[in-house]
């Protein structure tokens, strides 16, 4: 049994800080805990998938739009929560952490978001129509990548918080003093 195997058998302690790190940047909580290989796997896989989807979607499928109030189960919901109703994909993308915060800045402080140069700004109605009408459904497939990446990061956050779902039982030594 190698040293790494023995380390793997230690029960994980709950860590809110590692979970927060993994929310901010996928895999960072695992790297902080010393599970570097897994952390790098999460980092490259999820960022790769998210930005691949963002790129496929003409770099305009991660945003939070302004919109009218919506009614859910007879209850009126105003902004900012109504915006999630207008763009439910963002509820999944949100879990990618800091890389989607520009969308929140664009939504909340549009007048101060000049430094983002349009990054993750809500596209205009005409732009959305162009993207959806002139493509080969790729734009619609692309946001699925970004949402799946975000949803997978929820599992990664939980892994950082409480460890993997299946943990090995610590092995008892074959010989123990009486």
């Amino acid at each position: 049994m190698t040293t790494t195997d023995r380390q793997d058998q230690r029960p994980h302690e709950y860590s809110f800080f590692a979970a927060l790190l993994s929310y901010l940047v996928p895999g960072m909580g695992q790297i902080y805990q010393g599970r570097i290989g897994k952390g790098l796997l999460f980092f490259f896989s999820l960022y790769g998938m998210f930005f691949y989807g963002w790129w496929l979607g003409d770099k305009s499928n991660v945003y939070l739009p302004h919109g009218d109030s919506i009614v859910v189960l007879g209850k009126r919901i105003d902004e900012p929560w109504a915006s999630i109703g207008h763009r439910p994909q963002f509820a999944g993308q949100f879990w990618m952490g800091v890389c989607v915060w520009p969308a929140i800045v664009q939504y909340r402080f549009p007048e101060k978001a000049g430094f983002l140069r349009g990054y993750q700004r809500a596209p205009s109605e005409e732009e959305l129509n162009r993207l959806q009408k002139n493509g080969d459904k790729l734009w619609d497939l692309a946001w699925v990548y970004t949402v799946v990446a975000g949803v997978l990061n929820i599992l990664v956050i939980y892994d950082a918080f409480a460890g993997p779902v299946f943990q090995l039982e610590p092995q008892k030594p074959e010989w123990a003093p009486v």
Partner: protein
Amino acid sequence: MSIYWHLPIMIIIISLVYSATRYDQWGMILREAFRWGLRMVSFLVMIAVVLVVLSFFI
């Protein structure tokens, strides 16, 4: 290019990341990822076969 060419990337990443949240040991992660990849591909092939068969009759 067909949009379906983008599918393998999604299958590989979902399998790997999901399996890595189940286990800490690389052997177990890779084995579980392979199993999940196979399950997803089988499911998609099954759906495709059903659709192809239906397209003959409808």
